[in-house]
C-alpha cells in the first residue's frame, strides 16, 4: 500500500472532457483537492492515445478515456483500472458520413477514412452490422484525427467515420450525408474517468476529490445562467471553437449532469452487454493482446455482473463515488 498526496490527471480536448479544463481554470478542482488535503495536477495532453499510453505506463494516476480504449490499452496491458465517473455517452457525437446524397448501404466497396482501432472503428462495425455488411465490404484507411477534416476535402476521400468536433465540421460541408451516428447505438460509446485500481485502493481521497469536483462543475455549466454561459464559453475557446459550436457538440452528447443518471446507467444490465460487444470487436481486431484466446480473456466487472474471466479482472465499473455524490457524502 502506498498513500500519496500528489496526483496527476490527464485530459484531452473533447466535448465531454472540457469540464476538466474549466474545473482546473476556475479552481474547483483545487478547492476539492484542498478539502481532502491532496494536490491534483490537471494536465492537458493533445494526443489522446498518448495520454492513455502514459497512464498505462504509470505516468498518470487518472485519465479520461472511452470504454473501448479502457479495455484495449490499460486493461489489455495488465493495468487494473476502475471507472470512477461515467461522464457521458455519445449520442450522435460520432458518425459515419458519405459524400453525396447517399444512404449507409452505399458505403459498400468504398474506402472509409477513420482512426483505426478507435471507437470510430467500432462505430463503423456497428453501422455495417445494421445493414448486414461486414468490414470486408469496405476498405478501412487509417487517418489521423487531426487531419481528417482536411482529408475530407480531397477527392480521394468519399466516406469517413469520426467524432466531434470533426464530425460537425465535415457535415457542415456541402453535399454530405450523415448516414449513421452513435444515437442509433446509444450508450455504447461511453466517456469515463479511469483511476488505477491500486492507486484508488490506497488513496480513495483522490476519487472523492475528483468526483466532488466533477459534479460541482456539472452543476455550474448546466443551463443558461450567466455563470453557465461563461463556463461553456471558456470550454468552447479551449477546444478551439465558440459557444454556439460547443453547445452544438453538447447537444449530441448525453451528458450525465446528475450523478443519479450516471449511477443508473452504470448499474443497468445494458452496460455489461455493451462491454461484451466491445470486447468481441476488440478481440476480432487483435486488440486484447497476443495472449488472448477469446473475447472473454479480460474480466470486466460491473454492478450487474462480470463479463469474461473472473481471475483476470482488469476493468471495473464502480459506482461507489458517484453514489457518494448523490448521498452528499463527499
Amino acid at each position, binding site marked *: 500500500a502506498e498513500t500519496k498526496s500528489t496526483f496527476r490527471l490527464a485530459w484531452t480536448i473533447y466535448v465531454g472532457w472540457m469540464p476538466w479544463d474549466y474545473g482546473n481554470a476556475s479552481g474547483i478542482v483545487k478547492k476539492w483537492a484542498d478539502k481532502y488535503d491532496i494536490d491534483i495536477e490537471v494536465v492537458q*495532453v*493533445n494526443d489522446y492515445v*498518448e495520454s492513455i499510453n*502514459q497512464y498505462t505506463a504509470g505516468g498518470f494516476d487518472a485519465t479520461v478515456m472511452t470504454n473501448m480504449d479502457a479495455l484495449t490499452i490499460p486493461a489489455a496491458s495488465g493495468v487494473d483500472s476502475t471507472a470512477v465517473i461515467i461522464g457521458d455517452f455519445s449520442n450522435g457525437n460520432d458518425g459515419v458520413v458519405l459524400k453525396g446524397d447517399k444512404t449507409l448501404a452505399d458505403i459498400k466497396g468504398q474506402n472509409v477514412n477513420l482512426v483505426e482501432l478507435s471507437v470510430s472503428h467500432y462505430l463503423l462495425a456497428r453501422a455495417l452490422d445494421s445493414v448486414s455488411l461486414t468490414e470486408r465490404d469496405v476498405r478501412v484507411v487509417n487517418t489521423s484525427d*487531426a487531419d481528417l477534416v482536411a482529408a475530407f476535402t480531397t477527392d480521394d476521400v468519399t466516406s469517413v467515420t469520426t467524432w466531434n*468536433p470533426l464530425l460537425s465540421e465535415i457535415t457542415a460541408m*456541402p453535399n454530405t450525408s450523415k448516414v449513421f451516428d452513435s444515437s442509433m447505438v446509444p450508450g455504447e460509446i461511453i466517456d469515463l474517468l479511469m483511476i488505477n485500481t491500486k492507486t484508488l485502493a490506497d488513496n480513495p481521497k483522490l476519487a472523492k476529490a475528483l468526483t466532488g469536483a466533477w459534479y460541482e462543475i456539472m452543476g455550474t455549466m448546466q443551463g443558461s445562467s450567466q455563470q453557465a454561459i461563461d463556463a461553456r464559453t471558456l470550454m468552447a475557446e479551449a477546444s*478551439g471553437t465558440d459557444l454556439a459550436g460547443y453547445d452544438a457538440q453538447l447537444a449530441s452528447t448525453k451528458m450525465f449532469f446528475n450523478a443519479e443518471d450516471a449511477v443508473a446507467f452504470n448499474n443497468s444490465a445494458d452496460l455489461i452487454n455493451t462491454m461484451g460487444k466491445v470486447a468481441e470487436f476488440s478481440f476480432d481486431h487483435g486488440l486484447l493482446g497476443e495472449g488472448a484466446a477469446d473475447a472473454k480473456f479480460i474480466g470486466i466487472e460491473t454492478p450487474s455482473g462480470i463479463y469474461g474471466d473472473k481471475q483476470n479482472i482488469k476493468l471495473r465499473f464502480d459506482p461507489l463515488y458517484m453514489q457518494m455524490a448523490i448521498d452528499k457524502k463527499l
Partner: protein
Amino acid sequence: MRLMNSKPSRLMRLALNLLPFVILLIIYTLASDARLLENPSDKLLPSWSSFADAIQRMAFEPSKRTGEYLLWVDTISSLQRLLLGVGISALIGLVIGVANGMLPLFRATLSPLVTAISLIPPMAILPILFIVFGLGELSKVMLIIIGICPILIRDLQLRTQSLPVEQLLKAQTLGANTWQIMLRVVLPQVLPPLLNAVRLTLGSAWLFLIAGEAIAATEGLGYRIFLIRRYLAMDVILPYVLWIAVLAFLMDTILRLISKRAFPWYHGKRGEE
C-alpha cells in the same frame, strides 16, 4: 552571348526575385475567389480579409479565456523550447564532437553509438520518448535534442578531424597537452562551423518542435496549428505558418551575422560560406 554569361541588371534581378511570389499570390487569389464563390463559408482558401481578421484576433486581441495575446504567448513558448533544445544540442555537439574528433579512445567508444542513434527516426520512437521523459517541457526539448544532436556531433567530429594535422603537431611542439590543445586550438576553430551546422539543423529543429507540441502542450505555435487544424481554420493556420517561416529566417540571419562579427578570421578566409 551565352546564357550562362548573361547577368541581370540590379533592377532586373529584383524584378525576377519577386516574380514567383507575385505569381503565387495571383494564383492563390484566383483559386480562393473561385472556391468562395461556390461556397461562401469555405474555410480552405480564405480571402485576404479573413486573414486580416484572424491576425487581428490572434495577435492584437486578448483571448477571452485567459486574457493573453495568443500569437505572442505561442511564439514565446515555442521559441523558448526551440532555443533550449538547439542550445543544449549545440553544447553537447561541441563537447562530444570535439572529444570524438580529437581523442581516438573516445571516438572508438562513442562514434558507432552516435551513428546508430542518428539512424533512428525520432518520430518512430515518440511514444518511448514521452514515456521516458514525461509529457512536460523536458520531452519537447529532448525531442529536438535527440533529433539534431547526432547530426551536430558528427559534423563537429568531422570538422575537428579535418583540422590540419600540422596545427596539432605544432601545438605539441609548443608544449601543449591534450586539454590545452582542445581549449585553445581546436575549440575556437570549430565554433564557426558549429554555428553553421546549427543554422543547417534549425529546419529540423522546427519540425521536431512542431511534432512535439502536437502531442503534448497547452501553448506554442505547433500546438495552435494542431488544435485549429481540426476545424480547418486556414485563416489562422496560414498566417501561423508564415510567421514560423519569418522566425526561421530571422534566426538564420542572426546566426549568420553573429558568426560574421565574432569570427572575422573565419569569414575573411572563405567569403562564400
